[in-house]
C-alpha cells in the first residue's frame, strides 16, 4: 500500500459559479486520470441536472497520481463537495474526510457569502486552507483587490496564492504543488481498530449501496463484517476499492485512504453520511464525532397530476430516496388532490431538484403544494406537536401558541443594494443582527429571518433585486413564538385544502390578495361566476372573481373544413383534461406552482 506520507486528501471549496467543478476537471485532466478526449465538461458532476444548473448535488471523489517537482509520486484524493446552502452538513462531512482544502475565489467577484460559509466549515475541521484565485484570464479580474479581501476577511496569507484560469488550464500545476507541499499527509494508526467516516453513499443496481469512506484508523477488506456505529447494523463487505475516477477494486483500504466499500446495504438511509464504519469483530471505542441525522427543513405535498398514476409516483419517489438519504416522504391524502405524499427536503433548492428529477428523469406529471416549514405547536394542555402540513393544524382553541423556525442568514451584496435588501429582509420579518463592510464596495448583512419567509421566494427576490450579485447562506438557530395563522383558499365557496398555508398574521392579507389575484388570472372562465376567497377561519380577507363566459362558439364553417374545427375542439378537450376538478370549478395544474412564484410587482 501507499505510504501515508505520500497521500494527500483534499477538497475544493468555493462559492457557487466560482469555478470549482471546472478546476476539478482540469486536475483530472492534468494528472491523466481522464483523457482530454473523454473529458466531458465537469466530469465530476455526473447528473444531467447538475451539469445544466452548474452545481454539484451528489458528491464524487477521485484518486489521482501526481508526480511532483520533487520527483516523487503522490496519491491525491480529490473529494468533491456539493456547492449549495442546503447541503451544509454533507459539505462538512466531506471536509472532515480531508486534511486540506483548496479555496477557489473568483478573481472578478471576490469573496462571497458561501465562500465564507465554506471557509468556516473547513476551519471547523482544522483543514489547511489553500487560497487560489480563478478566472485570472478575464479582463475584469482584480487579483490584488481579491487577495486583500481574502487576507482581511479570512486571515489567510495570499502572497503565494496561485493565479489560475481553470477554464484555460492556466496554473493547474501550481495548485497541485501547493497541495503536495502544504496539505499534511493523513495520520492514523493502520493497525488500530477500524474507524472510517462515511462522507457519501449512492445506490448502484449491481452492488447495492456503495459507501464513500475515509479510513482514519485500521483497515477494511473484502469479506470483513463491518458495523455502522450510529445505526448499529452489521454487513458483510463485498468489495472495496477507489475511483480513478472509474471504479477500481482493491484488496484493502487502510488508514489514510479514501475509497468505496460495498456491503449489500439496501438503502442509502442505512449508510447515512457522517456515520462511522468499524469492524463488528473488533469495534472501535467510539464513533467519529459530528454525526447528524438528516433533518428536513422544508416540506410539501407531491401528488400525481391528472392522468398520472399514483403507483408511478410512488415508485419514482422510492427510487430517488434510495439515493438521497436527506429526502424523506410519507403517504398523505388531500381532499382536493387525492392520494399523494408529504415530502421533506433539506431546503428549497433540494426540493426543486427532487421535483425536477421526478418530472424529467421519470417523466412524471405531478402537482406540488405550497412549501412549508415545521411549526412547533404548543398545545393548551402543554403538549407539543410538530406540524408541517397546514391541514393538520389542531383546532385553534386547543392551541396554546405556535413557534416557528428562525434561521441566521448571511447575505453578501454590493453596497448599492443595501437599501433594497434591508427593505426585503424587513418585509420578510427579519431582524438585523449587524452589518459589516467586507470591502469598500461589498457588505455582509447578518439577519435573523423566519425560515418560512426564506422558503417562498426569498432567494429569487434577492437575486432579482441585486441583479444576481447577492448571495445567501443560512442555518437554523431556534424556534420562536410567532403569530402564525392558517390561510385557506375557497373556490366557489368550497375550501381547497391543497392551497392552504400557514403564514404570519402580518402577511396573511398580502398573501391572500396575491393568491386570489393570481388564481383569477389562471382559472379559466366557467359557465358561472367563480368567487375566489382567502380566509382565516370564517373571516374572508381577500376576494376576486372569475367572470362567467357568455360566448364559446365557432361561428363560421370554413367551407367544409371539418378537420380544422375538430382540431380546435380537440385542443379544448385536451385543455380540459389537464384541469383538476374542485367541486364544480376546474383549475389548471399550473395554478399550484404559479401561486408560489416570486413576482417583482407584488
Amino acid at each position, binding site marked *: 500500500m501507499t505510504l501515508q506520507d505520500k497521500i494527500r486528501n483534499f477538497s475544493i471549496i468555493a462559492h457557487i459559479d466560482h469555478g470549482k467543478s471546472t478546476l476539478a476537471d482540469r486536475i483530472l485532466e492534468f494528472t491523466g486520470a481522464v483523457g482530454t478526449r473523454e473529458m466531458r465538461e465537469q466530469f465530476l458532476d455526473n447528473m444531467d441536472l447538475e451539469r445544466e444548473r452548474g452545481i454539484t448535488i451528489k458528491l464524487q471523489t477521485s484518486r489521482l497520481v501526481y508526480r511532483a517537482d520533487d520527483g516523487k509520486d503522490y496519491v491525491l484524493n480529490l473529494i468533491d463537495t456539493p456547492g449549495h446552502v442546503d447541503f451544509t452538513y454533507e459539505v462538512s462531512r466531506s471536509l472532515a474526510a480531508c486534511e486540506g482544502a483548496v479555496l477557489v475565489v473568483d478573481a472578478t467577484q471576490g469573496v462571497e457569502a458561501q465562500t465564507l460559509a465554506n471557509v468556516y466549515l473547513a476551519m471547523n475541521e482544522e483543514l489547511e486552507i489553500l487560497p487560489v484565485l480563478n478566472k485570472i484570464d478575464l479582463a475584469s479580474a482584480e487579483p490584488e483587490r481579491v487577495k486583500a479581501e481574502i487576507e482581511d476577511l479570512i486571515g489567510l496569507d495570499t502572497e503565494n496564492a496561485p493565479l489560475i484560469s481553470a477554464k484555460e488550464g492556466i496554473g493547474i500545476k501550481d495548485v497541485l504543488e501547493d497541495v503536495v507541499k502544504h496539505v499534511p499527509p493523513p495520520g492514523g494508526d493502520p493497525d488500530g481498530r477500524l474507524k472510517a467516516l462515511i462522507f457519501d453513499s449512492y445506490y448502484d443496481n449491481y452492488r447495492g449501496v456503495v459507501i464513500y469512506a475515509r479510513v482514519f484508523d485500521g483497515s477494511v477488506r473484502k469479506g470483513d463484517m463491518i458495523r455502522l456505529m450510529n445505526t448499529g447494523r452489521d454487513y458483510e463487505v463485498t468489495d472495496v476499492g477507489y475511483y480513478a475516477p472509474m471504479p477500481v477494486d482493491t484488496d484493502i483500504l487502510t488508514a489514510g485512504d479514501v475509497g468505496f466499500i460495498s456491503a449489500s446495504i439496501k438503502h442509502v438511509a442505512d449508510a447515512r453520511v457522517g456515520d462511522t464504519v468499524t469492524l463488528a469483530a473488533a469495534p472501535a471505542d467510539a464513533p467519529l464525532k459530528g454525526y447528524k441525522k438528516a433533518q428536513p427543513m422544508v416540506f410539501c405535498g407531491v401528488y400525481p397530476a391528472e392522468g398520472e398514476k399514483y403507483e408511478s409516483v410512488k415508485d419514482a419517489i422510492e427510487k430517488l430516496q434510495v439515493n438521497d438519504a436527506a429526502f424523506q416522504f410519507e403517504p398523505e391524502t388531500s381532499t382536493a388532490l387525492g392520494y399523494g405524499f408529504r415530502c421533506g427536503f433539506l431546503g428549497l433548492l433540494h426540493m426543486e431538484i427532487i421535483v425536477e428529477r421526478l418530472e424529467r428523469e421519470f417523466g412524471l406529471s405531478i402537482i406540488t403544494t405550497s412549501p412549508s416549514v415545521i411549526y412547533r405547536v404548543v398545545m393548551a394542555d402543554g403538549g407539543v406537536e410538530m406540524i408541517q402540513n397546514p391541514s393538520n393544524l389542531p383546532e385553534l382553541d386547543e392551541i396554546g401558541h405556535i413557534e416557528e423556525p428562525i434561521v441566521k442568514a448571511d447575505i453578501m451584496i454590493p453596497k448599492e443594494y443595501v437599501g433594497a435588501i434591508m427593505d426585503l429582509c424587513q418585509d420578510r420579518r427579519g431582524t438585523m443582527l449587524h452589518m459589516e463592510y467586507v470591502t469598500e464596495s461589498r457588505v455582509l448583512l447578518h439577519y435573523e429571518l423566519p425560515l418560512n419567509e426564506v422558503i417562498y421566494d426569498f432567494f429569487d427576490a434577492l437575486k432579482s433585486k441585486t441583479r444576481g450579485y447577492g448571495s445567501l447562506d443560512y442555518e437554523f438557530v431556534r424556534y420562536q413564538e410567532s403569530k402564525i395563522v392558517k390561510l385557506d383558499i375557497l373556490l366557489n365557496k368550497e375550501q381547497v385544502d391543497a392551497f392552504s398555508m400557514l403564514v404570519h398574521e402580518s402577511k396573511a392579507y398580502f398573501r391572500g390578495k396575491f393568491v386570489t389575484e393570481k388564481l383569477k388570472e389562471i382559472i379559466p372562465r366557467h359557465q358561472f361566476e367563480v368567487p375566489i376567497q382567502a380566509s382565516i377561519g370564517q373571516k374572508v380577507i381577500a376576494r376576486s372573481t372569475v367572470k362567467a363566459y*357568455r*360566448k364559446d*362558439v*365557432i*361561428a*363560421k364553417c370554413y*367551407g*367544409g373544413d371539418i378537420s380544422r374545427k*375538430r382540431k380546435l375542439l380537440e385542443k379544448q378537450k385536451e385543455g380540459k383534461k389537464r384541469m383538476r376538478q374542485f367541486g364544480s370549478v376546474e383549475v389548471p395544474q399550473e395554478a399550484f406552482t404559479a401561486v408560489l412564484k416570486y413576482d417583482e410587482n407584488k
Partner: protein
Amino acid sequence: MKTSDESSPIGVYIHIPFCAHKCRYCDFTSFPIGDAGTHLAYIMQVIHEMRAKRPLLSGGSARAPEADTVYIGGGTPSLIEAGFVTELLDAVYAGFRVSDDAEITIEVNPGTTDAEKFRRYFAAGVNRVSVGAQSFHAGTLGFLGRIHRPEETLRCVWDARDAGFDDINIDLIFGVPGQSLSDWAGDLAAAAALDPAHVSFYSLQIEEGTPLFEDFVCGAIDAADDILDRRMYHFAKERLAARGLCQYEISNSAKPGKASRHNLKYWSMEPYAGFGVGAHSYFGGRRFSNTSELACYLSAESGVAMMDWTHKNTLSDDMSEFIFLGLRRTAGIELSRFRAHFGRDFWEIYGEETEKLIGRGLLEKIGDVLRLTALGLDLANNVFSEYV
C-alpha cells in the same frame, strides 16, 4: 358507417381563391391576383381536377356521379370573368349528373359585380347568390378592410334580382371592435330591407395569422366584449325571425324552404367534393384536403398531386362528427338516425357526457331529438368538445 354515397347525391364545391384585396379578418385561402392569365390557368386546372377525380368520385362506376348542389365560393368568385364561371359550370354538367332542382350558388362581393355578370350567371344555370355584404356601416366596413361602399351592396342585390335571382343570401358580421348595438341594428335593418331569402350572421373571429390578429396581439385593438357580442347575436335572431327568416344553424337564418342545401350537407355528414386550391371533400368515408399553395396546385399533373392530405374517418370520427356537426343545426340530431347510421345506441356511448350537458342547461332532449338550447348555441364549443 353505412355510406350513403351511392344513394346520396353529392355537393360540388369550387373554390375561387382570387380577391381584389385581402380583408383584414380573412384567413381563407385567397390571393390578391387580378390578371386574367392566372385566372384562366386556374380555371383550366380546376376543370382538369374535376376530370381527374371522376373515377375516385364515381367509385369505378361508368355512370357520372349525381350532384344536387353546386357552390362556387371564395375568395371572390365574382372577381373573375363571368365567362369562366360558365366554363366551370359546363364542366360540372359534363362531369356530374346534376339534378334538375339542383341548388347552384355563387358567392359575390359588392364592388366586383354588375348587371351583365348576373345575367350571365343566371344564363349559366346559377340560381342562388350569396352576397358578402358584411355590413352597411362605412366604419365597420373600413375596419374589416372591405373595399366596397354600402351603396354598392344595394346595387349588387338589385342587379341580382333584376337578372332573375330570387334566392339571395346576405352575409353579415357582428362583434366587430368599435361596433355598437345600434350600428348592428342598422345593418340588420338594411339587410332585411333587401328582402333576402337567407341571412348568415357571423360573430367576428380573430384568426391567427390575419392582420386583425396582429393588431389584437400588439394591443392596438380589443376584442369585442362577450356580453355585447351575445346581445348582438340574440338581437339578430329575433329581428330576422320577425322578418320571416328563422334560425336553422348557429349562424344562419332563412325563409321556409330556403336554407342552404349545400351547407346543410356539411352538417349532415352528406358527401361533398371540393375542387380548387385549399378545397375540402368528404366522400366514401374519407376526408380530403387540397394543397393551399397556389403554385403547387397549378403545377400538379394528377388529382393526387393536388392533395395535401387524406384521412379515412374511423367509426369514432364519424360518430363525433355526426354529433358536433349535426348539433350546429337548430333541428338537432335524431337519435334514431344515429342508431340507423352506426348500429349503436347513442346513450350507451355518450350517455354520461350528454346527461351532464343537459344538466348544465346546454342541451335538451325532445322525443327523438337532441339539440342545443339557446344557451347551448352561445356555448356550443363546450358541448362539441365533449364529443370529439
